[in-house]
């Protein structure tokens, strides 16, 4: 039976997501099988998982927990489209027709419950995150995100306030006051987040808070510029414009798609939206298309053919739209299957395990802009190719092909390389007469992994971990 711990905030933007990511990492470091969960997330930014789209912050939290995210980690994702309209993503899939007005619990609760149950079977600990304030007394009957879900599994709750904005003590005391008795009983302690200044000045306040709020303060977390833990939606690692996306990259949602992390880093660039292409979509909406690796070539080909995607692809390639095939995606592009590249491919098992260093050999297309650059990646099961110029060389041997606007390669993790990624995005921007991105380039995985470790280290210092462990042990008992 899984244990639970839930973070609820006194308002939005108190920094719950970052704390949840830090706790995921902290428990992961302790050897615990931990997963994040947020029942209901309203966010502009999403994260691609093998089973569909979830809120960005749950994707990040899963990374911090050292696990692959799944759609169950955020079963309800609401993506605002402006002026009262939004797109609803349920368990990873867009539901165009779902209305979430009215008595929410009727439609939403069973969905949330099902996802949470599945996670509970797989993991030892679920770090849950609420949304907004749990005591909007006019909307109590519609609460799924906060106490609605906490009560389902009797999750112990830590109540978080942002002390930077002022009024944090009042907000905690007031939130406690407005809980119903059974809700209040779940709250195990308070966390004051984003504190700057002299901790000495705060001490008397903490005493009063514990007295008036009736719960212990289990941590005062400092405002740390270096961790950039100031940004709910992006965790600071991935600044986004928050506005409409200017570059749309489509990824074919192939059956048994694998190595989906290949294209996740793309959405780290400002103004880039990575979209899952399912059925009956108009490919001309996209600025670039990616055919990802898949575990099942046959079904993937059937999927593409059934949607008439090969014909659309052929005409887009003629028009110069960049198309990238990775792993078996490359084989799909070749002469034996779709024939979108005049190359022969021959499947073979991975040539070299572990990380390899490849050098860009392409002289044309977007990849040509990074000619000579050495990038790290790893080789999946791939294909020997003949008939076109190599995209890369690995120890002098050719790897992959570059033909016109089409790139095929067996090299995974390509876009973790910040400069290569930026070259690709700026190439696409140039095609749309947009100015090139000039902001700092975030180097991928390693930077994030280090940030999660730093975050966990900070939380070890500033939270009362033994007390929190006691709370976790109490889960399910209320």
């Amino acid at each position, binding site marked *: 039976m899984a244990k639970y711990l839930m973070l609820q*905030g*006194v*308002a*939005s*933007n108190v920094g719950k997501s970052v704390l949840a990511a830090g706790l995921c990492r902290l428990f992961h470091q302790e050897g615990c099988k931990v997963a994040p969960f947020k029942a209901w997330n309203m966010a502009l930014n999403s994260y691609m998982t093998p089973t569909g789209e979830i809120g960005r912050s749950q994707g990040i939290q899963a990374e911090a927990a050292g696990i692959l995210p799944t759609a169950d980690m955020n079963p309800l994702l609401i993506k605002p489209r402006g002026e009262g309209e939004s797109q609803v993503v349920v368990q990873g899939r867009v539901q165009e027709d779902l209305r979430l007005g009215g008595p929410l619990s009727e439609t939403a609760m069973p969905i949330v419950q099902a996802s949470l149950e599945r996670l509970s079977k797989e993991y030892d600990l679920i770090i849950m995150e609420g949304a*907004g*304030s749990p*005591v*909007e*007394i*006019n*909307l109590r009957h519609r609460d799924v995100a906060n106490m609605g879900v906490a009560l389902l599994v009797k999750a112990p709750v830590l109540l978080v306030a942002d002390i930077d*904005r*002022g*009024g*944090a*003590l*009042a*907000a*905690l*005391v*007031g*939130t406690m*006051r*407005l809980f119903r008795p059974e809700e209040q009983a779940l709250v195990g302690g308070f966390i004051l987040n984003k504190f*700057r200044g002299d901790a000495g*000045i*705060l*001490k*008397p*306040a903490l005493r*009063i808070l514990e007295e*008036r709020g009736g719960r212990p303060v289990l941590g005062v977390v400092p405002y740390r510029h270096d961790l950039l833990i100031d940004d709910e939606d992006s965790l600071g690692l991935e600044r986004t*414009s*928050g*506005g409409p996306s200017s570059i749309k990259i489509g990824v074919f949602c192939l059956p048994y798609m694998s190595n989906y992390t290949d294209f996740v880093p793309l959405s780290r660039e*400002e103004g880039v939206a990575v979209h899952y292409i399912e059925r009956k979509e108009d490919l001309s909406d996209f600025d670039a298309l990616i055919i990802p690796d898949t575990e099942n070539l046959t079904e993937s080909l059937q999927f593409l053919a059934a949607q008439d995607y090969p014909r659309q692809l052929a005409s887009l390639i003629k028009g110069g739209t960049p198309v990238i095939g990775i792993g078996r995606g490359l084989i799909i592009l070749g002469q034996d299957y779709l024939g979108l590249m005049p190359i022969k491919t021959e499947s073979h098992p991975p040539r070299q395990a572990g990380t390899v260093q490849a050098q860009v050999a392409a002289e044309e297309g977007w990849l040509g802009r990074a000619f000579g650059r050495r990038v790290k990646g790893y080789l999946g099961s791939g294909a020997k190719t003949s008939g076109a110029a190599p995209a890369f060389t690995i120890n002098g041997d050719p790897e992959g092909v570059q033909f016109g606007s089409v790139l095929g390669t067996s090299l995974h993790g390509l876009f973790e390389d910040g400069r290569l990624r930026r070259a690709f995005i700026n190439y696409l921007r140039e095609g749309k007469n947009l*100015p*090139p*991105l*000039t*902001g*700092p380039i975030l180097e991928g995985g390693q930077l994030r992994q280090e940030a999660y470790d730093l975050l966990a280290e900070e939380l070890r210092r500033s939270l009362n971990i033994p007390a929190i462990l006691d709370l976790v042990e109490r889960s399910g008992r209320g």
Partner: protein
Amino acid sequence: MKLAATLMIQGTSSHVGKSVLVTGLCRVFARRGLKVAPFKGQNMAPNSYITADGGELGGAQAIQAEAAMTEPLVEMNPILLKPVTDTIAEVIVMGRSQGKLAAKEYQEFKGEMGLSVVKEALKRLREQFDLVIIEGAGSPAEVNLRAEDIVNMTVAHIADAPVLLVGDIDPGGVFAYIVGTLELLTPEERARIKGLIINKFRGNIELLKPGLKELEEITGVPVMGVVPYLSLDIPEEDTVPWSPAASGDVEIGIMYLPHISNFTDFHPLRRIPGVSLRYIRPGQPFGRLDALMVPGSKNIAADLCSLQDSKDAIKNLGVPVVGIGEGYAMLAREILVGGQKIPGLGLIDGSVELFPLLPRRAAARIVADKEWLADLAGLDIEGYQVQGVRGNREPFCLIGEEADGVAAPGVWGTSLHGLFDNDQVALAFINYLRRRKGLDPASLTIQEDPYEALADALEKALDMEAISRLVGGGN
């Protein structure tokens, strides 16, 4: 002597929109024929206003005075803190700079004389006006800071003011913030809170109503208004209004320097149709721009440092650049400040020197006569200076006898703040940008007085009858 009546607006935290409410209430009561003054004991803000006799006060209080249809006085904001770094601020007391103080030094000053300064200023206002509308700061329920309070309940007691407590519903948790604030106040403090205001509401009021009723039951304090999310052209107190890439005929970028000050210099440009302003943080992409503005700075060295990586991008933008105050100094190749040399952006040759001067209102005459200034040469304009800058061969204007600023191809600068408050200057600049793009010239819109619109909105949203009773000397 009969002292003015008082009314105080306090918030459950910062950024709940207190200052805009005070602005609106100033106009509501002023147009009812009362002599109204705004008051905020201590204000931390990057924007200031210079009075006729050279005194400096917070920009928000000057705006509130304007709404109250009265001359801004330093008494309306007797202590102004202009942030220089995270821990140092320039301290202005009754309009005069006391220099830059570290947080600790300021605490000492505040402990010694903060309260008496606030008391004296408030007394003077109450002797001259019919009604003083007082604005608090942050939350009144920071129980650990009660002893050193000179802006919230302490002032309410001194002024014997009825208090309206404002909560911001936008980020969520407004009920909890209000209930908790009342719980943490002492009984005497709590007794001062006569009404609650829910601010920045959007959505369906019917959904909110049951919550309001419950709130009144729990707190025993009446809700005296639900104010909708207003988008009026009234600058916020101390936050940079963040405009997400709005699109207009003419897009103007303003460098959002970490220590930005007097950024309201560029806001008058918005009065011209088709103009959109956008703040750009250092390191952010510039996007499509028709002009770039470099505003004033409280810490020119640190701000130039933050622009280090953007230097080339700024040089290569290929659009007109205007710098004002320290922003003008930054355009130079080199800046002399306090005996130190700092490398600037290098958009104009040579070096300039920053020198301190007493903040003052200033009359100037434009002398540059190229490009958009062709028709403006000889024009008399007004503005104010908070910092002297000298050293250019091709001046922008004369301030008194002294040459000021620079006019180079595509680059202009002056130490005169409030440049674009001069309608002709604003219009000429925008039409120059429009001509560059092949657009027809625009004209100034004669805008409705924004304070009237705000006052109208508040009269509709607030229980003015109840609030008037509070002011009418109910206590």
